């Protein structure tokens, strides 16, 4: 009898874990997208190891900020990770979304990023990103658009006070 109870308890626990693991993975995927950076084709300057690590860290944070800002219509995450034209555009998008009662949910399945240009003085880097992204646009609580696609982005990042910030972020048809 005791053995049967233990067996049921174990099965229950396994069932709970099997449900929780994908959920946890999904949550982690939402909060921290994976970014793989390739730098061997960067010109005219070679990307230093320290810079590579910083770019991966800060580009990841930038995408995390996009997800948070578009889902909640908040600007602070953008201000921390974007500058210049990219900040202007994303800020306008969030304001327009808010005004029209829209939100955008992004499930980020990862980025394959290639550094294609690194300026001679090391102040700016251009990235070509193939992103795998699931997008849902909601009008109030109703989903009005949903798709999953591989999207190509070009990003220009420049060094700021304590991190690299995204200055340009543009999607393009492959």
């Amino acid at each position, binding site marked *: 009898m005791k053995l049967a109870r233990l067996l049921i308890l174990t099965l229950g626990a396994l069932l709970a874990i099997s449900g929780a693991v994908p959920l946890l993975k999904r949550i982690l995927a939402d909060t921290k997208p994976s970014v793989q950076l390739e730098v061997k084709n960067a010109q*005219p300057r070679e990307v230093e190891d320290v810079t590579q690590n910083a770019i991966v860290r800060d580009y990841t944070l930038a995408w995390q900020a996009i997800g948070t800002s578009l889902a909640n219509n908040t600007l602070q995450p953008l201000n921390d990770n974007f500058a210049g*034209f990219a900040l*202007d*555009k*994303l800020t*306008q*998008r969030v304001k*327009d*979304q808010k*005004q*029209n009662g*829209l939100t*955008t949910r992004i499930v980020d399945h990862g980025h394959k990023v290639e550094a*294609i*240009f690194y*300026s*001679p*003085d090391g*102040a*700016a880097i*251009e990235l*070509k990103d193939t992103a795998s992204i699931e*997008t849902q*646009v909601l*009008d109030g609580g*109703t989903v*009005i*658009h*949903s*798709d999953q*696609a591989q*999207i190509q982005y*070009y990003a*220009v990042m420049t060094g700021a006070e304590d991190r690299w910030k995204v200055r*340009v*972020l*543009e*999607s*393009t*048809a492959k």
Partner: protein
Amino acid sequence: MRKVIYIGLVIALCWFAEDCARAAELHVPQNAVAGQPLSIGTSGSGTLYLIGPGQVIKRDFKSGGAVEIKGEELRSAGRWIAAVSGSSKESQVFWVKPGKPGRLNFLARPSRVPVARPNVISGVTFIFDQYQNLILDPTPVNFNLSVGGAGSSKSVTSREGVAWINSASAPKAGAAQFVASVDATTVTRVVQQVAADPCERSFHMHVAGHAGNRLIVETDPIRDCSGNPVPDGTIVTFIQTDKSGKSTVDSRIKKGTARAELPASDNATITMAAGVVLGNELHVGGK
């Protein structure tokens, strides 16, 4: 009973047909360009949302027809979503291309550079349309670096939105105009070209006189190897060595020359240096 079912089916069919007739359909453009008007075909009635990378446009529409978007409204290039909500729901993705070049981001480095050095000035240009969209199509960019009307020009075709060059500094000192241009869009940066280190061939000093028990030494006008005067304020170090030891004086160039007062000595050797360049050696006193 059969009649009732038949009537019910007919009603359901009519309802469905009416719904289909009112259902919105979307016809999104294939070649939209930022800054140019856009027409989106719809049918039925509802609300059209256009969700772009940097903006959202909302339009209510009734009884079908095309929804017209003005050129100045369509500012963001990239991936757009057109979604209809209303009697039915439909959405599609379409792309908007950037417009013509209208803005340049031009980074010129450094702001101050010695003359006649190879590959010391770099110019990087990112090309945008007037709505801040990066233009990824190859675009020729003209770079021109000139001092006092004389200079060099080079055309570089951009690749994935960026064009860059490395350039030598001119032999002549002065404020160089570094210009990047695409069609009628021009951006200018100033690179101050300053004289390089003093030229060893002409870096000479002589005894200029005595002041009490002090010896005054002065340099000839100090120039770099291209003949540009080395800027005032550059430090020249004079070192006098005699039996009592070593005396060092750091003097700044003033009006083209440097001058120092050293202790009078009956047998001393005086040397001078500016940066890594050594001047002539003077022997004073002695037999």
